């Protein structure tokens, strides 16, 4: 969180995840290089490196871009989201290896600067088949570079979440540039259609996932809550909310998370202060609402991060009438303490006390 910055916060899970990334990348490169040497023993080391790193970077980019929508479709993918930045930085280094060796192989033997050569050796911008595709890869790599160097939370806080998020949304521009870099580059010379088919399947999968996840979110935003009284809106039945979990409701264009924990209901703004993560999809850990994206925490009754952290979210009034949960969508200032709604305990016919919400 924001009280102090450390260079890298590598907990055990992140270390485990990083080893997995390393093992995956190494295995991929070894298999790719071995197969290439088996089928084409005359291939040079530079060519092997250029080809293997390019395909690996494209594969990783597809995985990275699919994590977001997958987590919105199924919460089981959330651990991937928690570690996505490490995968992104890894992808940048692999893409940079491809870029550096490509420039060395194709642009360092002349008498002009390699970068100048990259932009001047082919200027047929009007042609499709002979388009200077290397420039597209260069600009994509530039975007990945900016994203990699600003990936730490230090930059998120210093640039402000709005600017940081805008910068990182350029990954979609970079993705389009990469697709065209491949299509106007190697595909123009490689006649085997399998490369086009793989790329088309990858793109189609990504687009489908994002559109499905996006349309689901739109549906959530458009749910109408008609039953209203005294500023409160009835949102659900008490039993719809699991213990130490929340349900999210969009009222008056604002998403509110209603948490059930410790015999009470609390309502807080759904948007995490870190990276706008969905607090309503998290759970209560150690008494704190924990954002599913990067583990930022807030106390349910006042929306404040536990000391020494300083993040705060808005809180709302919530009340219970029978089993019906009601929310007042008028937010209190961030960090305002609210009492929450007590879940009454009732007595069973056998004389045992029980929580009505667990009936």
């Amino acid at each position, binding site marked *: 969180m924001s009280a102090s910055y450390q260079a890298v916060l590598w907990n055990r899970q992140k270390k485990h995840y990083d080893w997995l990334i390393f093992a995956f990348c190494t295995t991929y490169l070894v298999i790719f290089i071995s197969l290439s040497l088996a089928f084409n023993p005359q291939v040079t080391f530079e060519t092997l490196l250029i080809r293997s790193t390019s395909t690996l970077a494209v594969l990783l980019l597809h995985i990275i871009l699919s994590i977001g929508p997958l987590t919105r479709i199924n919460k089981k993918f959330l651990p991937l989201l928690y570690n996505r930045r490490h995968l992104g930085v890894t992808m940048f280094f692999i893409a940079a290896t491809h870029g550096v060796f490509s420039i060395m192989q194709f642009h360092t033997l002349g008498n002009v600067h390699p970068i100048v050569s990259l932009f001047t050796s082919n200027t047929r911008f009007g042609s*499709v088949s002979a388009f200077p595709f290397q420039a597209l890869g260069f600009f994509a790599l530039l975007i990945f570079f900016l994203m990699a160097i600003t990936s730490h939370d230090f930059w998120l806080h210093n640039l402000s979440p709005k600017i940081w998020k805008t910068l990182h949304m350029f990954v*979609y521009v970079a993705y389009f540039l990469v697709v065209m870099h491949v299509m106007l580059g190697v595909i123009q010379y490689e006649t085997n259609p399998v490369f086009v088919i793989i790329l088309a399947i990858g793109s189609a999968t990504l687009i489908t996932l994002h559109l499905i996840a996006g*349309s689901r*979110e739109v549906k959530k935003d458009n749910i109408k809550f008609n039953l209203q009284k005294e500023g409160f809106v009835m949102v659900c039945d008490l039993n719809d909310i699991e213990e130490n979990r929340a349900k999210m409701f969009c009222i008056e264009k604002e998403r509110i998370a209603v948490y059930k924990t410790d015999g009470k209901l609390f309502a807080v703004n759904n948007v995490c202060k870190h990276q*706008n993560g969905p607090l309503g999809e998290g759970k209560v850990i150690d008494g704190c609402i924990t954002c599913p994206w990067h583990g930022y925490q807030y106390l349910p009754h006042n929306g404040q991060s536990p000391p020494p952290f300083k993040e705060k979210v808005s809180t709302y009034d919530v009340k219970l009438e029978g089993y019906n949960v009601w929310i007042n969508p008028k937010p209190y200032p961030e960090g305002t303490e609210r009492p929450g709604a007590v879940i009454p305990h009732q007595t069973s016919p056998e004389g045992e006390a029980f929580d009505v919400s667990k009936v």
Partner: protein
Amino acid sequence: MIRPLRKRHLQIWSTLLVLIPAGIIMAWLSIKKPVHNNVLQPASEQALPNIILSVEKESYTVRLRSNESGARQLEWVNKDVLRVPSAVIYKTSPNPSQGGTYGKFSAEHAELIGRIEARGTYHFPLKEDSSNLPPQFILYDFIHEKIIDSVKF
């Protein structure tokens, strides 16, 4: 995510839904069709049944073939890709007036048999030769005007 961000994501991917397939199709359609290559020698002929002479080299095998009617054929089997892109084969015959020796090679006076390029088997028909002595074949780089190799049986 906040609502404007969700909206922007959906807008971006709706745009990519159009742009990416359009880009892929456009690039796919613009792939140049392979140019038909007219090599100097005619399409591969059937090998004649009898092998008269044969020479084995590291990168190629050369055979002189014939059939019952006396037609003769040169079979050149390239085991590896030639490092010289401009290689042609010349045939030189021994000169009886010089004691049956082949003399100094001259492309102007030798008989051009055909061109070899990639790995594979090439067949070239040979003209009738009154000499009973075996011919010599010269593999010649016509751009650099250099003899690459000579094949004697």
